[in-house]
C-alpha cells in the first residue's frame, strides 16, 4: 500500500471538492501483467521489475485469460505488460490465442529485450519484431526522450542506442509505416518529479529528431506522468521531494482529465490472477472489490460484478488527473 500522506492529497476528497464521481463506464480492455522479470531495472519503474524478479502468471492463469476473452466479446483489447511480458514462457501462446479470437493485442515492449539475452534462460529474443508483425501486434514502447541523456539516466547506460537499434528492426518489419497497418507507438515520461510537456508538441519533436537524425518512424507518442509509487516514490522520499511532487500533481488537477481515466474501462490482472482497477493499484496491492467488498480475481470475476464495482482510489491517482491527464494511452484531456 502507499504510505499515508497529508489529508490534502486524498484523491476521493479531491473528486468530491470538484463535484466529480468516476463510476466504471465499461470494460473493453483486459490488461495482464504477465511477469515482473525484466532485462532492465529502470530508476522510475513503478513495478520494481528487474532481471532478479521471478513472479509470473501461471500457465493456468494464461489459459483463464484466454477463456475470459472467449466468453466476453465486449473485451476488444488485450494489453500485455510486465516487467517485460515477452519474457513470460506462455507469452506467444497468449498472443496467438487472443489474435485467433480476433482481439487487438497491445504489447508494452521495452525495445532492448530484443537485444538482451533472456535473464533466466539466456535465449535470444531477436525474432520478436517478426513475431509481432506476423501477429499484427500493436507495439507500445517507452523511449523517455529523443536524446541519449534522459533515456540513459532513467533506463541505464547505453539503453538509448540499443533502443534505436530495436526501433530500426521494428521499422524494417513495417512498424511505424502508415501503409503497413503495423502500429508502433512511443511513450514519453519525465525523468523526474515534473509534469510532461504537451503531448502534441513532444510528438512533433520526436518525429522530427528521430526521423532526421536516425531515419526512424513511429505512429503516435503518448506522454505519461510518473506515478509516485514504489521505486519512484522511494527516490522522492529519499530526496525530500515526495510531498512537493504530490502538491504539484494536486495543483494541476484537471477535472476533464479525471473524466478520461483508464480505470473506468479497464481491468488489470496480476501474476496471481488477482484483479485491480489499474496496473498502479496492482503494484501497491489495492485489489479490486465488487460492490459487496469481495476481492475480485480471475476465478470469480464476471462482467456484471466488474461493471458494478466501485473504483478504488489513492493519492497516487493524482498523477493520472494532472494537467492533460495520463493513461496507458497517453493524455486524457
Amino acid at each position: 500500500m502507499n504510505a499515508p500522506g497529508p489529508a490534502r492529497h486524498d484523491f476521493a476528497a479531491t473528486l468530491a471538492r470538484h463535484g466529480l464521481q468516476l463510476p466504471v463506464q465499461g470494460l473493453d480492455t483486459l490488461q495482464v501483467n504477465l511477469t515482473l522479470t525484466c532485462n532492465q531495472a529502470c530508476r522510475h519503474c513503478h513495478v520494481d521489475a528487474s532481471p532478479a524478479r521471478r513472479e509470473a502468471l501461471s500457465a493456468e492463469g494464461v489459459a483463464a485469460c484466454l477463456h475470459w476473452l472467449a466468453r466476453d466479446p465486449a473485451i476488444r483489447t488485450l494489453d500485455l505488460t510486465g516487467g517485460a511480458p515477452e519474457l513470460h514462457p506462455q507469452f506467444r501462446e497468449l498472443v496467438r490465442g487472443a489474435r485467433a479470437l480476433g482481439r487487438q493485442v497491445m504489447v508494452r515492449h521495452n525495445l532492448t529485450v530484443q537485444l538482451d539475452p533472456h535473464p533466466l534462460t539466456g535465449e535470444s529474443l531477436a525474432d520478436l519484431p517478426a513475431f509481432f508483425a506476423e501477429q499484427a501486434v500493436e507495439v507500445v514502447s517507452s523511449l523517455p526522450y529523443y536524446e541519449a541523456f534522459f533515456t540513459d539516466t532513467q533506463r541505464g547506460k547505453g539503453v538509448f542506442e540499443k533502443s534505436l537499434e530495436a526501433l530500426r528492426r521494428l521499422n524494417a518489419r513495417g512498424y511505424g509505416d502508415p501503409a503497413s497497418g503495423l502500429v508502433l507507438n512511443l511513450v514519453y515520461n519525465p525523468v523526474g518529479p515534473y509534469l510532461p510537456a504537451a503531448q502534441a508538441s513532444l510528438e512533433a519533436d520526436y518525429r522530427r529528431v528521430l526521423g532526421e537524425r536516425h531515419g526512424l518512424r513511429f505512429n503516435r507518442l503518448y506522454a505519461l506522468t510518473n506515478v509516485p509509487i514504489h521505486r519512484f516514490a522511494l527516490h522522492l522520499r529519499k530526496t525530500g521531494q515526495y510531498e512537493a511532487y504530490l502538491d504539484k500533481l494536486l495543483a494541476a488537477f484537471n477535472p476533464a482529465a479525471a473524466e478520461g481515466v483508464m480505470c473506468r474501462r479497464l481491468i488489470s490482472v496480476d501474476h496471481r490472477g488477482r484483479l485491480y482497477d489499474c496496473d498502479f493499484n496492482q503494484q501497491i496491492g489495492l485489489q479490486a472489490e465488487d460492490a459487496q467488498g469481495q476481492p475480485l480475481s480471475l476465478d470469480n470475476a464476471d462482467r456484471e460484478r466488474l461493471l458494478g464495482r466501485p473504483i478504488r482510489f489513492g493519492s497516487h491517482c493524482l498523477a493520472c488527473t494532472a494537467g492533460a491527464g495520463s493513461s496507458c494511452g497517453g493524455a486524457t484531456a
Partner: protein
Amino acid sequence: MNPYYNADDLQKFGEIGRHGKALADQFFQYYGAVTGQDGALTRREKALIALAIAHAQKCPYCIDAYTTGSLEAGASPEQMMEAVHVAAVMQAGITLVHSVQMQNKLDQLVL
C-alpha cells in the same frame, strides 16, 4: 534557518497580494497570459527566455521555477544550457560595448 532566499518561499509567491490584492491579481493574470500558453512564441521558447533572464538577474527562485518549467515545456538540458550562455554572452557584450564609450572619451582626452 537562513532568512534570505529560502527555496520554500517560492510557494509563497501568491501571497504577494496580502497587502495589495488588486495589483497582485492583475500581475498574475498578466503573468499567466504571457507564460502559460503558446502565442507567437511557444511555451518552450518563453520558458527558455525566462530561464536566461533568471540567470542574468541572479534570481534563485526563478532558476528553480524555470528549470522545472523548461523541462515541463519539453526542453532538453542542452537547450537550457544554451539559453544560459545567451544570457552570459549578452552580459559580456553589454560590458564590452561600453568600451566604445571609453574609446570615444579616450579620443577626446588624448591629444
